[in-house]
């Protein structure tokens, strides 16, 4: 059976034009998939967890699902200050339940953006954002700038579907568009660019500020900026001003380098300033397929996109105090619920070590370093393959994923697991 219009649940591109042929409950063939997507469709069944596990001594024993849920609920209810972490490789439906759970147990709930694109969100709180949907870029953009981002490797279809190589209504071909890359190394994306600006590491803020000077007509009494001759900076500024419709896409090369949210303040301000001269927009290259959705749901339920503390009963937000890094650094949490994330593999080792010391409940389809260190592990279905669910593309376009395969027998969806956990917690608190 060929299933058309499948939404890919790998990166923030959320390509929704995949055609997947399923034969005997197996993926036989995938059309329109990039290498990352192909790998997911091909290898989704390796390293799966098939039964709930509970720690026994140095190993695990398999446990009945309801026992695992009951024990997980008890752990969360008994905890003084639990951490609820993850929420970006799952559906919005599961995130909604996670937020209610955080409210109930008075915990701190945070999602992956606090360690990836969070600085961009803080930037929006400082400056605002000149944003648009990806179709605007496809149809109108004659200048595309990737900054600290390498879509050829990280978002393989981004340029073909939405930007430089896309066919739009008003800008129909690659020749109609100028592609500029700013990066610290000559990436695969940079090799395709019309103009490449190789800058010194950690000098983004400097260059962005210089560009703002140039765009706003101020003279720079400098010879070089960020390792570039000042003439090249002015040349870049001229390119930005002289386009009809420009877009700046930024990656972790901007959010996680020196300056962090200040880099984004500068980038967002530059794009804002450019709108006095032409039309210019800016968009983060979000990594996980539903990190944007996670931010959206967090925001409409609590007012804040990540790092929300419910210990006082109402939502509080203060990056530097209420994100995963903060609460682990202060060693304040005494239990953790990890949903669809692998913090042990990705956090700095000192924070991972802290996390390992507290009882963790992990809900994940696959065996990961985090599941190995958990007290309770509950397997789940893969969103977009084995379960439906709403996800938000990097530009905030919501899409509903399809279920194209059955999950392994007995394995429930994140939504079901969270519903059961929430019901159990409510029962204990009654």
């Amino acid at each position, binding site marked *: 059976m060929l299933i*058309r*219009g499948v*939404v890919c649940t790998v990166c923030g591109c959320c390509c*929704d*034009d995949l055609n997947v042929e399923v034969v005997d409950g197996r993926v036989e063939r995938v059309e329109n998939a990039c290498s990352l997507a192909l790998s997911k469709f091909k290898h989704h069944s390796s390293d799966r967890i098939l039964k709930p596990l509970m720690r026994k001594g140095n190993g695990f024993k398999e446990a009945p699902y309801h026992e695992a849920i009951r024990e997980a609920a008890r752990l969360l209810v008994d905890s003084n200050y639990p951490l609820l972490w993850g929420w970006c490789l799952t559906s*919005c439906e599961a995130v*909604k339940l996670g937020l*209610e759970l955080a*409210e*109930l147990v008075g915990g701190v709930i945070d999602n992956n953006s606090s360690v990836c694109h969070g600085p961009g969100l803080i930037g*929006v*709180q400082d*400056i*605002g*954002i*000149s*944003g*648009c*949907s*990806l*179709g*605007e870029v*496809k*149809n*109108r953009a004659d200048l595309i700038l990737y900054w600290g981002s390498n879509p050829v490797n990280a978002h393989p279809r981004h340029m073909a579907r*939405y930007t430089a190589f896309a*066919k*739009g*209504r*008003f800008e129909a071909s690659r020749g109609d568009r100028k592609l500029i890359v700013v990066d610290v190394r000559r990436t695969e994306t940079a090799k395709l660019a019309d103009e490449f600006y190789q800058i010194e590491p950690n000098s983004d803020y400097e260059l962005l500020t210089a560009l703002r000077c140039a765009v706003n007509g101020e003279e720079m009494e400098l010879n070089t900026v960020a390792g570039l001759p000042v003439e090249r900076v002015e040349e870049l500024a001229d390119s930005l001003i002289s386009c*009809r*419709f420009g877009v700046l896409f930024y990656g972790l090369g901007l959010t996680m380098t020196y300056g962090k949210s200040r880099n984004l303040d500068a980038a967002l301000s530059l794009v*804002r300033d450019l*709108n*006095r001269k*032409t*039309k210019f*927009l800016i968009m983060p290259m979000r990594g996980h397929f539903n990190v944007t959705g996670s*931010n*959206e749901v967090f*925001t*409409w*339920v*609590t*007012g*804040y*996109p990540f790092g929300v503390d*419910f210990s*006082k*009963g*109402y*939502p509080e*937000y203060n990056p530097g105090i209420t994100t995963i890094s903060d609460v682990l650094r202060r060693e304040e949490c005494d239990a953790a619920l990890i949903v669809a994330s692998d913090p042990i593999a990705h956090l700095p080792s000192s924070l991972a070590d802290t996390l390992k010391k507290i009882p963790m409940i992990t809900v994940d389809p696959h065996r990961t370093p985090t599941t190995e260190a958990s007290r309770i592990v509950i397997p789940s279905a893969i969103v977009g393959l084995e379960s439906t669910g*709403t996800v*938000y593309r990097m530009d*905030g*376009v*919501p*899409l*509903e994923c399809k279920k194209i395969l059955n999950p392994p027998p007995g394995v429930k969806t994140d939504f079901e697991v969270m519903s059961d956990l929430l019901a159990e917690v409510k029962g204990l608190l009654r």
Partner: protein
Amino acid sequence: MKMRDLNIRNGVVYDPLNRIDGERMDIYVRGGRIVETPVKDAEEINASHMVVMPGGVDIHSHIAGTKVNVGRLMRPEDHFKDVLPRTGIRRAGVGHSVPTTYVTGYRYVEMGYTTVFEPASPPLKTRHTHEELDETPIVDKGCFPLMGNNWFIMDYIRENKYEECRDYVAWLLEAVKGYAVKIVNPGGVEAWAWGKYITHLDEPVPRFEVTPREIIRWLCRINLELKNPHPIHVHTNNMAKPGNYETTIETMDSVKDMASNTDGKPIIHVTHVQFTGRSGTSWVNVGSGAPEIADYLNKNRHAEIDVGQIVFGDTTTMTADGSFQFLLHLLSGNKWANSDVEVETGAGVVPFRYRRGNYVNAVQWGIGLELALLVKDPWRVHMTTDHPNGGPFTEYPKVISWLMSKKSRKRLLGKINSTARRRLTLGDIDREYSLYEVAMVTRAAQARSLGLTWKGHLGPGADADIAIYNLNPKQVDPSKDYLKVRKAFKKAAYTIKDGVIVCKDGEIVETPLGRTYWVKPPLPEESLESLASNISGRFKEYYTVEMDNYVIDEGYLANPQAVAPAR
């Protein structure tokens, strides 16, 4: 959930749709609906010395969807001051100008409102709007998809393909489960996608070669032919610019000739007219165009408006009119968000503080009230603040008190910018709304305009959505005791939704999930098929999602209620 039958005794009832003006009477509720006779074994509510009205209906309030969430994201400083902890009944959240979804539902209900419409949803992102509406508790709701800058519609107009355009509008309403045709700055938002502006009704839209006038006329004609329950809902061109009252009148006048066979019901709703009711030629001599607009409305029955009153203080402005938000950013220097949406529309968000001492803001305050007081027919001038643009909806009690009391207006008039005070006619207006008229502009007229024939009144068969306010009309003179009026409307003594007491003494006591209304226009199956084959090629070319993934199944909504065309 306690679904009890109710006998509401001895209230002073204001029910304009049934011509009941302050009569002392009983209201009976069985099975979530109003019935004619007392119900046995029902809960008795003693409403003596209290005002009883149908539940409030808000025709235009930005409560859900992309731009609202951008507003929330952008304004942590707005949230810190106003937090709501979880209780056994209520979810937690934050309030002030862009409340979280749960708080939005609670605060409307606390004021006796039971139905709210989100008036600007980009079709491509309407799934998001529905997600938020599904998490907005208690109230019934719906959303208006934005169509005034839609490429398909503009192409059909240029190619003069009326039937195809009509079928597309019907398809779009159904595809995204929308309730009414919304037009924002027709053609102007498409121009803004290029950083350009449209300044009058006959200026061609760049690269489309159709005019705002054509867009409005085509959509008005289509809306009438589809017999949609609500007229076209129009945010005009030239938002906020001095002299734009002329655009407002021209917009209303542009469809006047289509009104002949519509049994006198308005065929165009012009929204938040305070923002488009300005006279003058610059920011120095900007003034009120309210007298001219009111004069037009008093002479022409085919148009209606909502006010979009401003309330002094801090708020968050947001609209699909991205060009206006950029201008506001330039004027104010405040942070700015923009959100253009392919093929369809745009949006912008800018925080703003309305100041009494600021000349323009003071004029704005005057324009809104002049409109409300100079338009003679309260059925055609709905009370809104264009939440949160003029101010948060939680300020409605203040607006009601201004409508009801010259004294309260005078008090504030004395404190506003003195040049504005001199130039406004507001000080000379003696009219004061009665409670009967307040019931019109806050529920009865809005329900009627939306075509919700089972709402906005307390006749048998109506939904038992009821507000009871702790205000004794025999003792309180709203003209003098306006503070008592404010207090009463701020926290309803009871709010009843579908027969369930959801709020008592201003506190939420039950949180059922309200319905989401959407309109299912009549569209024969063969039209639908030919439409799909007609647009699928261009859809693929223009959009970045598949057409099948664009359509929102009814089952996606938590509690959908399809409404058949009613006109």
